[in-house]
């Protein structure tokens, strides 16, 4: 058995994590940034470890990010996506999970549209560490750790800072994970969305809720834009048109300026230019979007190391 670092057996979500665990992972990720900028991007940390990326939902950045992270640390990385998997042949999620676990990987990285997939599988897969790479609208912990690393580099201590998350909060696992992380790490979250894109009792997270984007700008340190997850919308009635959505909730230069010179822009991707974010903002010097992607690799290296990079316990 491997001894996991920071007391992390799995990485299901920000829920249940301590401030120390979050800080340790972010700092470990910080140490890995260096490897990614070297000419030879390889370290032996995870030699002999097997990581399987099991992605039931489409993903480019997260899956590639985990793949590169594993490979740069010398792990054997296998990618499985739903379109080529046994799921198409009628196999259940549980059988797919158990089948892959029987091949004795150290870590299964899972993305699935069903909330709680990792929690569910963990009841049956006893010897495999699980990383949640996004489960429905529930949690996306490595994205939040990534964001915290990017913020560490750009604004230093996040304590007391205000992050304004704008858009499809209802379907966003990123928003939920940030709301949980904000409480643990001591930053403020403002949510901006029409009621159609907000979940019930969201104010219970202890955040401020706005329907008027302009009213939320002042005092914001980070503007965090979300894509409208059209694939999860059940009717056409969440907002009347992209035109009106962009007008009301899109981040343009005018709004960015109104937020003040110190304000940074983030987005977990993929972006829809001209919907939640205008091109000039996305490409502006205030945008941390590509830095988030870069740090995403470092954080996933940290996550894999935490779960399977520890000393072997005989």
């Amino acid at each position, binding site marked *: 058995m491997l001894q996991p670092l920071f007391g992390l057996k799995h990485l299901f979500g920000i*829920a249940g994590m301590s401030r120390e665990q979050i800080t340790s992972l972010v700092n470990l990720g910080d140490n890995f940034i260096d490897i990614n900028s070297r000419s030879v991007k390889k370290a032996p940390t995870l030699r002999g470890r097997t990581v399987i990326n099991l992605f039931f939902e489409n993903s480019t950045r997260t899956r590639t990010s985990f793949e590169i992270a594993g490979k740069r640390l010398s792990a054997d990385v296998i990618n499985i996506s739903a379109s080529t998997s046994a799921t198409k042949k009628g196999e*259940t*999620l*549980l059988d797919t999970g158990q089948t892959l676990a029987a091949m004795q990987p150290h870590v299964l990285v899972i993305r*699935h549209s*069903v*909330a*709680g*997939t990792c*929690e*569910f599988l963990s009841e049956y897969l006893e010897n495999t560490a699980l990383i949640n790479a996004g*489960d*429905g*609208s*529930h*949690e996306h912990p490595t994205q939040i750790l990534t964001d915290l690393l990017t913020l560490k580099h750009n604004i230093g201590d996040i304590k007391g800072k205000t992050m304004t998350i704008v858009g499809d909060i209802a379907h966003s*696992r990123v928003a*939920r994970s940030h709301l949980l992380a904000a409480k643990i790490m001591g930053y403020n979250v403002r949510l901006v969305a029409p009621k159609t894109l907000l*979940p*019930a*009792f*969201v104010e*219970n997270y202890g955040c401020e809720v706005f329907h008027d984007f302009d009213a939320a700008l002042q005092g914001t340190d980070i503007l965090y834009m979300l894509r409208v997850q059209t694939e999860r919308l*059940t009717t056409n009635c969440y907002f009347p048109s992209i035109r009106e959505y962009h007008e009301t909730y899109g981040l343009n230069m005018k709004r960015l300026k109104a937020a003040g010179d110190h304000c940074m822009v983030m987005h977990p991707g993929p972006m829809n230019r001209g919907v939640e974010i205008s091109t000039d903002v996305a490409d502006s010097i205030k945008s941390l979007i590509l830095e988030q992607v870069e740090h995403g690799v470092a954080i996933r290296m940290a996550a894999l190391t935490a779960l399977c990079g520890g000393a072997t316990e005989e």
Partner: protein
Amino acid sequence: MTDILIQHGHVIDPANQVDDVCDVWISDGKIEGVGKFEGEAQKIMDATGLIVCPGLIDMHVHLREPGEEWKEDIESGSRAAIAGGITSICTMPNTEPCMDHAGIIIQVIARAKEVGLCNLHPIGAVSRNLKGKELTEMRELSRHGAVAFSDDGKAIWHAGVMRKALEYSSSFNFLIIQHAEEKQLTEGGAINEGWVSTQLGVTGMPVEGEDSMIARDIMLTRLTDARYHVAHISSKGAVEQVRLAQKEGLKVTTEAAPHHFALTEDEVLNFNADAKMSPPLRTEEDRLAVIEGLKDGTIAVIATDHAPHHEDDKRCGLSCAAFGIVGLETMLPVSLALERSGALSMSDLIAKMTCNPAQLLHLDEGSLSKGSAADICIFDPKKEWILNRDKLVSKGRNTPWHGKTMIGQVQYTLKDGRVVFQNGEL
């Protein structure tokens, strides 16, 4: 000579206002008397310390036969019923094919008689193929044994069809049982909409889905002077509406399932698919309102909505899992908590599982009246035991009470004077 004497038990027979330590004696499968027995009996059962009451009636059960026998069949469901002290079950029509014509009604009744462990009273479909469009031949179904009508599992959503169903059924004094759910508000939902669904990122079903359908139906009941029964009531708003309708004198009745007065939505915080059902577990406020409704009589009946599923249909993540839990074997112990908390007297509690549903469905059951069938439940109200889902008699393993301590246990179930269940021997 009397066949069987049950002596020294605490006999509770709400229909006859009996609540006393006394004897019950049986001859030819029928109740011969309740009181102080003098004479000789072939067989004596000692019920000291136990409660002796009429066999329980569960008016809301899904048995899956015909069509989905791997989930439950009439035999396994009958066995589960008697293990729960239940001697009469009313089964919902959403079998495959569904109970929308006499053939299926005749078939399930015949099969239940063959099994011979408990009474089975089918509830006929309101609409053909449960499609909510054309009415079934209710008179014919009734003639063959249907005791009420419902499209349970789905609501009769179309207001015009519902109006006609209420008008037609009430012309013959039939009861319509509604699964009150406005699908346009609950589509895609898996659990109650609220703080729990928000934290889990799981689509919720707002309480208004239930409440709005009941509001509409009460108006239609007023319009049609029909007999309307709300199945598995789960929300505060719904209980309040039924209470007001009853005050107004409308023929509106309702039932509550044990899980709705025993559990809340917190049960699914760990993504437990065995606590997923429709209507879903709701908030503490709703749970207390259901108990209040039971206390003041708004809710006259306790019924389980026993909904067995195969494990494969539950082991796929909360949002994909099938709706429903098993309930026959936990109805009595879970409900007994209402007596211990002082919400209901033992007699009132037993009435909600015996004579009240019998009266609603015009069944000649649910009492220990002289001459009635000797269907009897004998239970120990204090016996503690731990529920193990693998030991359930039902084929379904989908219970939220796995590993939980139950207080109260059925010791004997008699059907027509025959001991069909004895604790520890089935």
